[in-house]
């Protein structure tokens, strides 16, 4: 297994390299650059600024320069728009996003997985219909509706909760709830589907026939197989959650990373955006690896793949 992890990490480096290359040329193909909207600057000042960041060179040369700086100096460059080091900007916005993402994930798992398991067990009962209805509502009502609703009906009523801001630990609650609702719904539905697949298997019937207690059957015989699709989904979902969400960050004024993804694109801030892409790619590589390992640990039939 150590060899497997080592191999995957090596492959991960390759993934990041390919990702960086594709993204660099895609971003460079965007019309305009970081200084297009600066109307006040004179033509000469513009040229000077572009030269300062190397944006006046041909794209392949820019790419080579970026790569050299990244590999030799571990330097992500300076954001032309914000005039700050990209690594500094990312370091600032990284903790809020991770904290928010972890909490949202926690909420999603605590709500979603039990709902899914019990709906599968009690398939086609009122509990099933009710919880799946709830899950569907979680998917229908996007963050830009849940957020304001929570602000209006909870934050305004409960004195301990603020409408927006990011100072005390309590401020995490509402944005995490908003962010976690959709993944909770996905988890519930996926878990229910995976569990139904397993509950029909012969060995589960055998377990019932042996007279095992119901909870033991669920815990020891079905959960590991039934949660397989859930875990396959969790890897990328987790990466998505902790790389920040623009909508939730905007609504609740969270100083996270999601806005840099969007603003980096809108402002054509190539170095900032590449920094975000690299960070997100890194998360995807690591979390997909973790998710694959957990799947193999849960299902003996997958262990050959390790």
């Amino acid at each position, binding site marked *: 297994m150590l060899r497997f992890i080592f191999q995957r990490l090596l492959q991960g480096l390759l993934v990041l390299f390919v990702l960086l290359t594709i993204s660099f040329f895609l971003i460079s193909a965007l019309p305009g650059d970081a200084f297009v909207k600066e109307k006040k600057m004179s033509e000469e000042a513009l040229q000077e600024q572009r030269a300062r960041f190397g944006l006046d060179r041909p794209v392949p040369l820019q790419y080579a320069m970026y790569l050299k700086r990244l590999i030799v100096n571990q330097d992500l460059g300076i954001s032309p728009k914000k005039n700050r080091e990209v690594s500094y900007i990312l370091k600032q916005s990284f903790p809020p996003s991770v904290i928010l993402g972890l909490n949202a994930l926690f909420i999603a798992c605590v709500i979603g997985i039990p709902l899914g398991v019990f709906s599968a067990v009690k398939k086609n009962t009122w509990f099933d219909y009710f919880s799946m209805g709830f899950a*569907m509502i979680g998917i229908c009502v996007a963050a830009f509706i849940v957020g304001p609703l929570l602000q209006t009906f909870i934050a305004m009523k409960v004195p301990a909760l603020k409408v927006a801001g990011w100072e005390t630990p309590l401020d995490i609650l509402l944005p995490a709830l908003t962010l976690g609702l959709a993944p909770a719904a996905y988890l519930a539905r996926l878990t229910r589907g995976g569990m139904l697949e397993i509950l029909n298997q012969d060995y589960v019937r055998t377990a019932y026939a042996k007279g095992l207690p119901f909870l033991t059957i669920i815990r020891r015989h079905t959960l590991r197989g039934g949660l397989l*699709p859930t875990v396959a989904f969790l890897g990328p979902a987790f990466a998505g959650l902790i790389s920040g969400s623009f909508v939730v960050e905007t609504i609740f004024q969270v100083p996270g990373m999601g806005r840099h993804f969007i603003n980096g694109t809108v402002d054509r801030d190539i170095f900032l955006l590449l920094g975000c892409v690299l960070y997100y790619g890194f998360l995807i590589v690591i979390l997909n690896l973790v998710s694959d390992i957990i799947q193999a640990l849960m299902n003996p039939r997958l262990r050959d793949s390790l």
Partner: protein
Amino acid sequence: MTSSEPQPEFARGTSLWMDAWHRLRQNKVAVGSGIFLILMLLLCFVAAWFMADPNIQNLDNKFSSSSGAHWLGTDQMGRDLLSRILYGGQLSLVVGLTATAVAFCIGILYGAVSGYTGGRIDATMMRLVDVLYAIPFLVLIILLQQLFDAKAGEASAWIIEKLNIEKQTTQKTIRRISNVVPLLVAISALGWLTLARITRAQVLSMKQQEFTQAARSLGLSPMRILLRHIIPNTLGPSIVYVTLTVPGFIMYEATLSFLGLGIKAPNSSWGVLIKDGANFMETQPMLLILPGLFFTSTLFAFNFLGDGLRDALDPKAAKD
């Protein structure tokens, strides 16, 4: 199996699809949902043509309630709400359904081939998925929009010249189409990744099982084993996930519009209508509730149909 019948010449096994169709018809909720979806499609794509123009403004008649002229009232610019909902439904349903269909085909085949082949090919294919996960999506959309805007201008000029159709309607229609195409391409191109991961995990666990070994020892080709023996067994979780991607993509389009990159005004979609309605949540709740009702009911129908399909396609379900 129906092998208990006495005459051997009629003792044919029924296919999975026949069984599934048979079981699906028994499921009243699923059939009802299917009928509801067909009605919704008819409403959005046929009935909408007979409605008022969804983009005509009448600022003297803002926020009017239900009346003979405007069945569901009007919005913040005095536009007919029902007509906007139906026209918006066209865009939302096209985005949700097409992108899901593409994602379904690519994701399942890709994940199945990757998982079944294993080894280096599997590693390469799944690492490519990792790369695609992290590609900056907005950049892709902006680039595609640029590409299609240029092409749409040429296309409408060509059509007007060759076919001699009235200029304004053609341009309007083409603009509506060219507005959706980049979204569709981008969402379809990147929407299949999680489905591929889910399918691959299922296939990995199937390829060790006895029925696959049996198929292999019979000398069946890998493609046949995949298509006839493995993929049908993985469809359950995939269909469940797919019923989630339809609303997922529809809402994703709304989020893109929230960023100004989705459907452009005055065109609308369910997501955009819901988002706009949210602005008037406290004073004019109907503007949020009515589009939300269309969206949610369609979603529930998809959901129940998907559950019905999952149950019907479960190879282990009793054949009765």
